[in-house]
């Protein structure tokens, strides 16, 4: 049990890191990685929802009828998204405004539903918790990596602090929408090269 929980945790960090290996949850990956700040907060919010929903779904796995399980999962997830939304409004209002519609859209993030369906509805609470945490941290790391690349190249800043001199010419393309697709594609390419043994 203990060993498998550790495994569930670590696989989310590398072997099955959500956007790059599972290629799930791409909407926030593309939309909120304009800047490091929004990327990190999105990652934290998703991790929170993922961990909580995994635990609750795992606890309720014997109560939820098979036929309506997806609807039940969504209700659980939506509850925690609302919690996360209210928390962020209370404590990080400026970031909440920047995230905009993508905050409530965590509900339909396929990683969360995917983990609930594939793992939490079948396994114990401990394993589900570890899986949610691992996946969440992996997701946050991916967002952070992608957002860093895009913000540094596209805007010449990191966490809104300039990193280059005055003469630096930002590559506006990278913070535009097509830049998100291109940089995500390049990241997938790098991950595949690294994973190829």
């Amino acid at each position, binding site marked *: 049990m203990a060993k498998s929980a550790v495994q569930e945790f670590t696989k989310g960090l590398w072997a099955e890191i959500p956007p790059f290996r599972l290629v799930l949850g791409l909407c926030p990956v593309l939309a909120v990685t304009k800047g490091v700040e929004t990327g990190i907060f999105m990652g934290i919010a998703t991790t929170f929802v993922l961990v909580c929903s995994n635990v609750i779904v795992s606890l309720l796995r014997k109560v939820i009828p098979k036929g309506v399980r997806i609807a039940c999962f969504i209700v659980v997830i939506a509850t925690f998204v609302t919690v996360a939304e209210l928390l962020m409004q209370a404590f990080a209002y400026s970031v909440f405004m920047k995230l905009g519609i993508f905050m409530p859209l965590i509900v339909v993030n396929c990683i969360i539903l995917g983990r609930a369906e594939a793992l939490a509805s079948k396994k114990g609470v401990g394993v589900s918790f570890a899986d949610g945490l691992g996946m969440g941290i992996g997701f946050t790391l991916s967002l952070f990596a992608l957002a860093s690349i895009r913000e540094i190249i596209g805007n010449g800043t990191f966490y809104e602090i300039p990193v280059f001199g005055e003469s630096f*010419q930002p*590559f*506006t*393309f*990278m913070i535009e929408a*097509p830049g998100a697709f*291109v940089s995500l*594609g390049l990241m997938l390419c790098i991950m595949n090269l690294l994973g190829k043994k």
Partner: protein
Amino acid sequence: MNLKGFRPLKKTFQMQKVMLRVCYALIPLVCISIYLFGLRSLALILVTAVFGIVTEALFTFRRDKPITSAVFVTCLIYSLSLPPTLPLWMAIIGIVVGVAMGKMVFGGFGQNVFNPAMVGRCFIYITFPIEMTNRWIEPFWGGVGGLSAWSAPVDAITRATPMMDLAAGLSVSLQKLFVGNVPGSLGETSAFLVLLGGAYIIYKKAAPWRLATSCLLGGVILSSIFYGMGFSGMPSPISTLLSGSFLFGAAFVATEPISGAKTKSGQWIYGFMIGALTVTLRGFSNFSEGIMFSVLLMNSFVPILDRTVRQVQASKKAA
């Protein structure tokens, strides 16, 4: 572009007659761009070519395949579509992106969905809009022209291109537009030489004539309609044709056989839409030139166009 020098390395370079002919057709444009804008344009073209070829080599040599001569055409068309004052490093970024992302990631020669030269240009157009659209210089004219100078003085106030003048409602000498004595991108200014090159590749069947013709038709018809309806900032069809890179695009960009439509009717629609979209973008968008966007847009419609045309033909035969 003396390509004879490459002959001994037959395994490294794959010669494609069609592509070489396009290169020959572009040589007069290279010459006039040097004459008009100074030796800097030669440097721009050479640097672009070197980096474009190296990028392609990085991909093809991994798979033991030769560099195709299509990359020369890509580099030439790309560099001739740049403004003469563009910093060299920006040109390098554009061609690397164009060849790598526009062509090699799709599988190399023959597989590219989009015109690689336009992908590269589009990338730097969005990334460095000021350098790409706002730094035009008055060309040299008379005597040895720009052959003895590095570049026209850039510090002078940037000139408006004929396209901007036309959009502002000023009149532009058609004779100047025809000869090429106007500010603009390296290869687009001289309508005469573009027509000459275009006629050569079509005569030699290096480019499908339907694409070029339908593109011109689309542009002329739509701009006549707009002109007739009296929209402000909409120049007469003849000025539309001669100004900017419309002819250059119709002759060399829209006719790229790989990313263009393959079926006959598909080619007519594809070219016509490029011409029409270009005129529309020029007249009603924030961009002064539209041929690049319209070619890229229509590139993405090619598969569905060709498919539909084939389906319609098949159902006609069956009936």
